[in-house]
């Protein structure tokens, strides 16, 4: 079910068509998310809701892409996603039709079996069939997101597009292997997870309340693991027979054992389906792992995965293997874990915590192949990597560190290799290498921010410069930077690492050369030109309107760029033109003026010629200064020659006079 979100989001053409009235909150229709009334600006059609998207929990890009414009009966399909209330605001919304009725969470009485089957099971199964055909999961089937209709009409399934999959699901409504994950780490999952949530919803409606509501989430997960979900959720309840048979299958621990949605369209056929689910083997005495008392293998995997230090200690001391062999009676599993520990002993230094974490991860998969990826206590499904990293970046640095390490050591393929029949190993390996490559890309256009923005196409730019806006795409970036520079004109570089990584991730390689050009420029002029080049392309390609403040920021810092010209009058002319262009907000002409290869070449040639001329002048001046003795000698020579000529002329004249006089 998981698909890569990269480069799959296109601008929503319907964005901006909807008015959002933040003064009219709709607390009951958003499934727990902040929701407001909305209407279509063009048609005036109301009855819409706008679900607020959290900055650290991006909306689901593939679901929005595939469902906008789609018509699925009894489902709040998305109509658009946009900024609001006004363009350029700091909030982002997903617009959907507002369900008309009350959420089922407000109902207190049990529903009858025919009503549950006719108004809930069949309609939602039909929705799941249509979603499955589109390779989309819902992951938000819970009482406060399912809405009753008029009598005898099917319920309406609420929206699930404004947050990462399953993020707001109560642990009770999630399979235990999803519930134990970080809320942002549950991933798109499989349609079978929706079937599981539907099964829990059926129990809730049948008994008139949420089962295990009194338990805290961890206790509920442990109970499901120890007893099996069906037994845990229905242990002290009496269910109608058809519902009971259906739910037994729908709550199977293995997703492959749950009935597909198409089968649920015919509940009577579905109840006849039997799965051979083996009940978990319970030990005669427990094993203590950290704060968890373990009675069975699945709980052991959960305890080791969520408390890795205690789990690894228990394995290293041999307690776990002894318990597995003698108490649980699973000698095969004990031997495999012993092999794992022997491998660890030869793998690296004893204080190598990364090797310990890898051993724990492998041990969890060996003990429970259904378990998700566990790394240093962080539990998630690999298809949730993007959402979890976004959450980590904004609010949980430790989570982010764990995920970054997970990618750096390429642990996802290692995990997948241990359970090849349950995941696409080659696909995960390719994806993991791509993630690692992005993470290790040097320079401002790479690294952690680049990976996070690439994995989350709808994550806004999280730069401090764009804090006051929701920058969802490159068209929003230029005006956001313009506003940020306007707020702090003297200030910082408009292209901080987040902005550059965001541009690199969203430009789909169209600005790759400009982004790469930002790498490593000790020279201030080159540094500025690289930035100017990127912003010019941003303006030309994505925002063909003036950016006077941004251009003015560059004009104010253009001294080193102007100094690239040797000719002083040309410098003054360039500086003046830059200021003129900056006032007009045109960055590309500024860049053309500064780069101007022909002009720069002629300028450099002129400078060389001028230098040579200056050397010639200096040499001639020196010769004049030092030429006094030479001139004296020259004057003496000329004077003596002149005196001789005068004497000779006088002699000639006198002889002529004597001859003819």
């Amino acid at each position, binding site marked *: 079910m998981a698909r890569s979100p990269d480069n799959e989001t296109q601008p929503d053409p319907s964005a901006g068509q909807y008015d959002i009235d933040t003064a009219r909150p709709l607390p009951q229709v958003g499934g727990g998310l902040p929701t407001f009334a909305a209407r279509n600006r063009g048609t005036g059609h109301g009855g819409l809701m706008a679900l607020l998207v959290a900055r650290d929990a991006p909306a689901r890009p593939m679901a929005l892409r595939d469902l906008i414009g789609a018509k699925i009966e009894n489902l709040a399909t998305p109509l658009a996603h946009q900024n609001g209330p006004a363009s350029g605001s700091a909030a982002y919304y997903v617009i959907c039709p507002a369900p008309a009725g009350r959420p089922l969470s407000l109902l207190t009485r049990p529903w009858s079996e025919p009503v549950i089957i006719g108004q809930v099971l069949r309609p939602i199964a039909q929705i799941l069939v249509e979603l499955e055909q589109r390779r989309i999961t819902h992951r938000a089937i819970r009482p406060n997101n399912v809405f009753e209709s008029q009598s005898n009409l099917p319920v309406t399934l609420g929206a699930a597009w404004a947050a990462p999959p399953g993020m707001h699901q109560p642990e009770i409504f999630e399979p235990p292997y999803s519930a134990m994950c970080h809320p942002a780490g549950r991933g798109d999952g499989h349609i079978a997870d929706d079937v599981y949530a539907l099964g829990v919803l059926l129990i809730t409606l049948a008994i008139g309340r949420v089962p295990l509501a009194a338990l805290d989430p961890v206790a509920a997960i442990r109970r499901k693991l120890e007893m099996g979900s069906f037994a845990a959720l229905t242990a002290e309840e009496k269910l109608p027979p058809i519902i009971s048979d259906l739910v037994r299958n729908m709550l199977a621990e293995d997703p492959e054992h749950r009935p597909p949605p198409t089968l649920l369209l015919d509940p009577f056929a579905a109840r006849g389906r039997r799965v051979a689910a083996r009940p978990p083997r319970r030990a005669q005495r427990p094993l203590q792992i950290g704060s968890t008392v373990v009675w069975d293998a699945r709980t052991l995997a959960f305890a080791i995965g969520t408390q890795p230090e205690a789990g690894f200690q228990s394995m290293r001391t041999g307690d776990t293997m002894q318990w597995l062999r003698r108490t649980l009676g699973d000698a095969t599993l004990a031997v495999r874990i012993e092999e794992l520990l022997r491998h660890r002993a030869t793998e690296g230094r004893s204080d190598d915590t990364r090797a310990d974490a890898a051993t724990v991860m492998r041990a969890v998969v060996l003990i429970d192949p259904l378990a998700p990826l566990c790394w240093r206590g962080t539990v998630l499904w690999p298809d949730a990597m993007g959402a979890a990293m976004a959450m980590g970046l904004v609010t949980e640095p430790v989570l982010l560190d764990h995920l970054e390490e997970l990618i750096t050591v390429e642990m996802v393929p290692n995990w997948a290799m241990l359970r090849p029949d349950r995941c696409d190993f080659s696909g995960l390996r390719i994806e993991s290498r791509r993630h690692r490559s992005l993470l290790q890309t040097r320079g401002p256009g790479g690294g952690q921010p680049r990976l996070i923005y690439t994995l989350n196409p709808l994550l806004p730019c999280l730069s401090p410069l764009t804090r006051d806006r929701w920058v969802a795409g490159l068209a929003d970036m230029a005006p956001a930077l313009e506003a940020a520079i306007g707020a702090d004109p003297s200030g910082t570089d408009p292209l901080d690492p987040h902005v550059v990584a965001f541009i690199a991730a969203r430009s789909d390689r169209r600005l790759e050369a400009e982004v790469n050009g930002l790498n490593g420029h000790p020279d201030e002029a080159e540094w500025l030109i690289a930035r100017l080049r990127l912003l010019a392309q941003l303006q030309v390609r994505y925002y063909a309107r003036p950016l006077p403040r941004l251009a003015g920021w560059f004009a104010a810092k253009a001294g080193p760029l102007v100094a690239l010209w*040797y*000719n*002083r*009058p040309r410098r003054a002319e360039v500086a003046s033109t830059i200021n003129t262009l900056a006032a007009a907000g045109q960055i590309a002409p500024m860049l053309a003026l500064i780069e101007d290869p022909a002009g720069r070449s002629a300028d450099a040639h*002129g*400078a060389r010629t*001028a*230098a040579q*001329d*200056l050397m010639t*002048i*200096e040499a*001639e*001046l020196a010769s*004049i*200064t030092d*030429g006094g003795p030479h*001139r*004296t000698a*020259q*004057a*003496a*020579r*000329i*004077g*003596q*020659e*002149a*005196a*001789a000529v*005068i*004497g*000779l002329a*006088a*002699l000639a*004249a*006198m*002889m002529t*006079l*004597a001859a003819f006089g």
Partner: protein
Amino acid sequence: MAKAKTKATSGKQSGGSLMWLQGLACGGLAALVPGIALQVGILLLPAIVALMLDRAAGKPVARAILLCALAASVEPMRALWNSGQGLDLGFSLVADFHAVTLTWSAAAGGWLLTQVIPVAVRMVLDTTADKRASDLREARARLIEEWGLGPPADQ
């Protein structure tokens, strides 16, 4: 080395020959036309002295003095030649204070020319060089201002 010695020896020999020929000419002149020889000796005395004192190559000062003195001596020589070239007439012409003064003044004028003309020429050359230097400094300042090539060396 042997060739150089040979050349030096031959130069000395030719100089000595010239001196010998000059002495022979003077002696011949004094014997044949003693009046003219006397007059030449008296009138060109400053030039003869200058020729003896001027050690510069080509004897430029002596040359100017000699030419000027010769120019002034032409008329007394012509008068003596036309009067018969006798020794007594020679003495009488030598006693002519006016002719001697004129000739010696011409020799002095020749010497003066060799001293004054170089000074004047030097002044002209200096003026020309100053004008050229001024033009060059202007051009240099213009280049520096236009291209920012750095401060001039003499400022």
